[in-house]
């Protein structure tokens, strides 16, 4: 996962942002590499939007520097910036007599000639962008006739049509229902990995932020309070403190909406159980690695997740030892996987079969990773 520093698409150096003379957030130091998603989280009004708008040039930063691909953004022309960075805002525009295709076509602005007439190549790019967000069937429709979710897809296509390396998304899911939220984020994640874009976004939905982000930055007060991988941020009471939650707590383990599973031949075999492997499943999913999991008891709390996310799972009936065939099948799977991850720490009567699997994997010389439960 480590990439050399030349892959840093956007670097905020000592950036201060705000409106007029009021500084909202100061000394922001963040870097996003290509192919990576950074998500800003934090309470309402914390200034997430202000940060994004300052990066995109919608408002002037009050201090510090935004580096795009290592270059000071202020030294680039409008056209150069537009060819590097594009944005999807929170509010959707109101259009008049514009088809979706025409809305997307406005993204070609930095590439067209004096009169802004699109070449065939430009139109091809427009159609490609619509296909990427899976909105090709609404291309000819009037933008105002679409549902919010479809409109948001079209706006994403507009941003992609600008052929950016950096995508800024201000609460892209804010007024979508749960189905559209999940669809849109999974689309974004796919595109990011495919086109190696750097994404800088803000999200309200913590459960989803955890699942799509490579980095999470917590905005609180006038600082970025913490930056880190989701596993670090969603641990202990960080979230509860970030949102000043006094009642209840943030259940870091289960975010209910799931992104679709990564399809393909399983590359990793996860030996888990009892919730110890949940974070491993999410991490593999996020990194786009198909995996198999087992052997789990049907009443294991990991089962609902595994059922959704693993391409293959080995499940035994509750309170019973697994059948010999199941154990053998799991072994066959381990033989063809590249890697085995085991998150189980203690083996006893009820998971002795998993110890058998672990030992089998070690004997085969598979790269075995022992992980402690990440949600201690």
């Amino acid at each position, binding site marked *: 996962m480590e990439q050399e520093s030349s892959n840093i698409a956007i670097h905020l150096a000592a950036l201060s942002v705000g409106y007029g003379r009021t500084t909202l957030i100061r000394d922001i130091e963040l870097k996003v590499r290509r192919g990576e998603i950074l998500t800003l989280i934090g309470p309402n009004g914390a200034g997430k939007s202000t940060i994004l708008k300052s990066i*995109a040039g919608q408002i002037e930063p009050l201090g510090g520097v935004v580096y795009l691909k290592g270059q000071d953004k202020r030294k680039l022309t409008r056209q150069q910036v537009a*060819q590097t960075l594009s944005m999807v805002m929170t509010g959707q525009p109101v259009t008049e007599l514009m088809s979706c295709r025409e809305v997307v076509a406005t993204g070609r602005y930095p590439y067209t000639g004096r009169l802004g007439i699109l070449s065939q190549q430009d139109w091809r790019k427009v159609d490609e962008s619509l296909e990427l967000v899976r909105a090709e069937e609404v291309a000819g429709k009037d933008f105002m006739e679409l549902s919010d979710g479809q409109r948001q897809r079209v706006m994403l296509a507009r941003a992609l049509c600008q052929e950016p390396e950096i995508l800024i998304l201000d609460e892209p899911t804010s007024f979508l229902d749960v189905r559209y939220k999940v669809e849109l984020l999974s689309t974004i994640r796919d595109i990011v990995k495919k086109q190696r874009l750097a994404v800088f976004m803000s999200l309200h939905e913590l459960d989803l932020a955890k699942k799509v982000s490579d980095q999470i930055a917590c905005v609180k007060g006038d600082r970025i309070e913490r930056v880190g991988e989701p596993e670090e941020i969603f641990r202990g009471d960080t979230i509860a403190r970030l949102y000043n939650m006094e009642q209840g707590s943030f259940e870091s383990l289960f975010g209910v909406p799931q992104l679709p599973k990564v399809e393909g031949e399983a590359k990793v075999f996860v030996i888990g159980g009892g919730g110890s492997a949940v974070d491993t499943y999410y991490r593999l999913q996020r990194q786009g690695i198909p995996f198999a999991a087992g052997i789990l008891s049907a009443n294991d709390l990991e089962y609902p997740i595994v059922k959704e996310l693993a391409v293959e799972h080995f499940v035994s009936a509750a309170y019973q030892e697994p059948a010999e065939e199941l154990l053998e099948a799991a072994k066959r799977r381990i033989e063809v996987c590249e890697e085995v991850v085991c998150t189980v720490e203690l083996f006893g009567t009820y998971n002795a079969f998993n110890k058998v699997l672990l030992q089998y994997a070690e004997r085969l010389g598979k790269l075995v990773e022992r992980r402690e439960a990440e949600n201690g």
Partner: protein
Amino acid sequence: MKRIGRCFVAMAVALLVLFYWNVNTGSVALTPGEVLELLLLKRGDAVALRIVWDIRLPRMLAAAILGGALSVSGFLLQSFFGNPIAGPYILGISSGAKLVVALTMIFFLGRGMTIGSIHMIGAAFVGAMLAMGFVLLFSTRTHKMSLLIVCGVMIGYICSAITDFVVTFADDANIVNLHNWSMGSFSGTTWSNVSVMTVVIILTLFVTFFLAKPMAAYQLGEAYARNAGVNIRGLRVMLILLSSLLSACVTAFAGPISFVGIAVPHLVKVMTGKARPLIMLPGCFLMGAVVTLFCDGIARTVFAPTELSISSVTAVLLVPVVIWMMLKRQGGR
């Protein structure tokens, strides 16, 4: 694209028909053959020749060119405010131009000096920019278009009131003309007027045409346009300057003309089914020419030999269009 092509052909045909109708209505009746002979060969009855060449033709050309310019000006203002109810007349810009032109004329004519077309345009431009300045000042205080339009209408009333006042108390004989002009009229247009307005308006439209690209990006609003790399401040300044210059030019030659600037862009959108600036700019010019020529024809002929002011005709014919458009927008939300 076919539909757009057909629309442009239809407008061009309408323009030709109206040209013919305008040449051939009035106190002197002519046969089609005579009209062609007069126009193409400059041959025929001496009186008819004078009437057609010295009176009707420059007037028609002025109506077409100025009507087109006014419509483009309206479209630019609508893009600027992001609202189809904007127009140079309703925002008080025409009246501002009228006021400064009237003051300038009274000042110069009172001293026995004559003023040329260019100076008239300059004076009108100053007036248009002043009125526009007030509207922009109000627009920093409110984002409600309805409020802004009320402000514009009031500015228009104040300017008209002052104009009436100075016209009433100016006693020079030349100012009799001024009264006609301040009501809005194409009568008395000379060939030299036509040549000046043609040059100024064609140059302005040429520059305007290159705004089609940023205006298209601006259709999604300021934020998305900026994101696409549009120089927002530059675009806004250009929209204001060009729309003011176009409506100033109209006012300098024909006085204030109501509702053309607001209704014509809407008609073009309904007809073509598109709002792309690249189509709208030439579309508005053509359609504006058609509508204004038609209205001027009516102003001239309905109660002949008495002439109506052009604004009374445009108001009667175009206000229904504006109301229809406002109701439709309301329903759409």
